[in-house]
């Protein structure tokens, strides 16, 4: 890989088209967890949606791939690939179009069972861990694994922690966790996880009662801020009553901490 573009761009020069059965095509844009590649995935998804390709049923953006599910009675792998090639490279989304979410977190104690462990593992105080975790602006790379479960990039190097040897079969709803170089926001339901639990949020990333059941999407930005137990309990009550306790802001410019 010596050509000019790969030096400046970590993604592939051309997408790789990988068939996923008779009804899907995986469009792979790179081989790394990387903000630039992920931004291309998001941009490609938007461009493809705007194109209204016949037979496309839905698309699933992930770190470095866009999965295109299609109706094999209408479309073909080759037809989808041709549509993607015509859109390549997709236009970068304007920075001002990003959404920024400020997410309240109650850290430590029974809310974050692994805060002490993470602090000890890095020779930090728990306050320092909270400070390091609330400082960056994270990027949502993808939603997957469970309804509204958000995978975030941008974790401070000093908090990079290998996942637990023994995953927990259940973690509390709204868990705020870290694993390896990644961070995550859990939906308001119990999910299995091998990541370290730092705290919990009252924000409901998935709530089928809302007109918009999901909060976060790929390319969104997230900042965490600490709230105390009383504040958390009040937010939980408000959220359960159907109140929207977080709302997106328009964010400009590049995220400060969201480099990998």
């Amino acid at each position, binding site marked *: 890989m010596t050509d000019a573009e790969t030096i400046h761009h970590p993604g592939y020069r051309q997408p790789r088209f*990988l*068939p*996923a*059965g*008779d*009804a*899907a095509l*995986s469009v*792979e844009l790179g*081989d*790394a*967890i990387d903000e630039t590649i992920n931004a291309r995935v998001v941009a490609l998804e938007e461009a493809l949606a705007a194109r209204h390709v016949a037979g496309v*049923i*839905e*698309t*699933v*953006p*992930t*770190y*470095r*791939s866009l*999965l295109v*599910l299609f109706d*094999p*009675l209408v479309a*073909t*792998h080759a037809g989808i690939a041709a549509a993607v090639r015509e859109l390549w490279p997709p236009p970068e989304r304007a920075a001002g179009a990003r959404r920024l979410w400020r997410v309240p977190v109650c850290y430590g104690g029974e809310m974050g069972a692994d805060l002490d462990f993470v602090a000890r593992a890095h020779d930090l105080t728990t306050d320092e861990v909270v400070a390091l975790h609330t400082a960056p602006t994270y990027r949502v790379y*993808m*939603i*997957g*694994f*469970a*309804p*509204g*479960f958000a*995978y975030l990039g941008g974790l401070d190097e000093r908090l990079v922690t290998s996942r637990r040897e023994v995953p927990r079969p259940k973690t509390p709803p709204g868990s705020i966790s870290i694993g390896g170089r990644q961070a995550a926001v859990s*939906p308001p*339901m119990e999910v299995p996880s091998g990541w370290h639990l730092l705290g919990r949020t009252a924000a409901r990333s*998935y709530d*089928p009662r809302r007109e918009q*059941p*999901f909060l976060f*999407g*790929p390319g969104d930005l997230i900042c965490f801020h600490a709230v105390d137990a009383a504040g958390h309990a009040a937010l939980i009550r408000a959220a359960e009553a159907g109140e929207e306790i977080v709302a997106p802001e328009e964010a400009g410019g590049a995220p400060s901490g969201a480099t990998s």
Partner: protein
Amino acid sequence: MSGHLRFISGGALTTVQDEGRVGWQRHGISASGAIDRRLMHLANALVGNPLAEAVLEITLAGPEFVVEADAVRLALTGADFPLSINDRPAAAWRAHALRRGDRVRIGTARGGMRGYLALAGGLMVAPVLGSRSTHTRSSIGGFRGRRLEAGDEIPIGGDQDAAAPLLGCPQPPDFGGPVRVVLGPQADAFTEEAVATLLGAPFTVSVRADRMGAELDGPVLAHRDGFNIISDGIVNGSIQVPGHGRPVVLLADRQSTGGYPKIATVISADLGRIGQRRPGDEVRFSAVSPEEAIAIARAAADEERALIAALAPAADHAAPTTERLLAANLISGVVSGRDTSGEP
């Protein structure tokens, strides 16, 4: 007039399913839906429903319920389940007219894994994200997000045409035969031997098989280097191979994304074949190209249309006999796994 079904027993795993949640996988929602769409479509067609109407998917041991509604037609398709109405044996693959107070019992499957029970007018559970399908792991959809249990009362839509002729399926489809796959999306994460083994060796369905996926026992498939990939999207039929090297065919209730390499993908026309194999049953895979896979999907859709067009008023009311089922290739297809479909 509508009413409900009152369940005496829920059976081993009975859930409300339809075509599944479309368009929400990007939000981490599992698609779910009937494992075998063709059999769901046939059950619905037998009672005059739209093909995508919600049905009950029953697994291995069926439920028992009482009809607390006005006249309604019912039909059962799929695995070889004994069906009785008021303790009298009744045939699968045809519609029956039920009246208030009738008691329906579905026993333990003699072959195959899953059956589809349609009620004319459908099941009136509230749709969630556009679908009535149950996803038990996230407690979404269906009846309270879970499998049916004794005491449940499932509202039904009501039969608008209860006096219609009772249709039967003269030639029920079989679900034996090899399971065809398209290699990839990550076949290159495996050794050449692993790909050859997948396509050459017999596997058996393990006891770790449910609506989320079926883990297969048999030869272990070796990764080229490591078994972690950067998580990406998963489709119905993705064959994922975790670190232990045993392939897992992911089905309707799969997670939306995953981080293990996927050596191949079962084509949609053959998902029912996997879905009807029970623990201990053999599975053999064969590879087709993406172009062939699309041609097979189109042929399967034509075949389904022909099957539905061939539904005709049922001639007799006799219970299915072993001879009749054998004649319909049903038992042979299920038990032996021989390819009796006549497909290429």
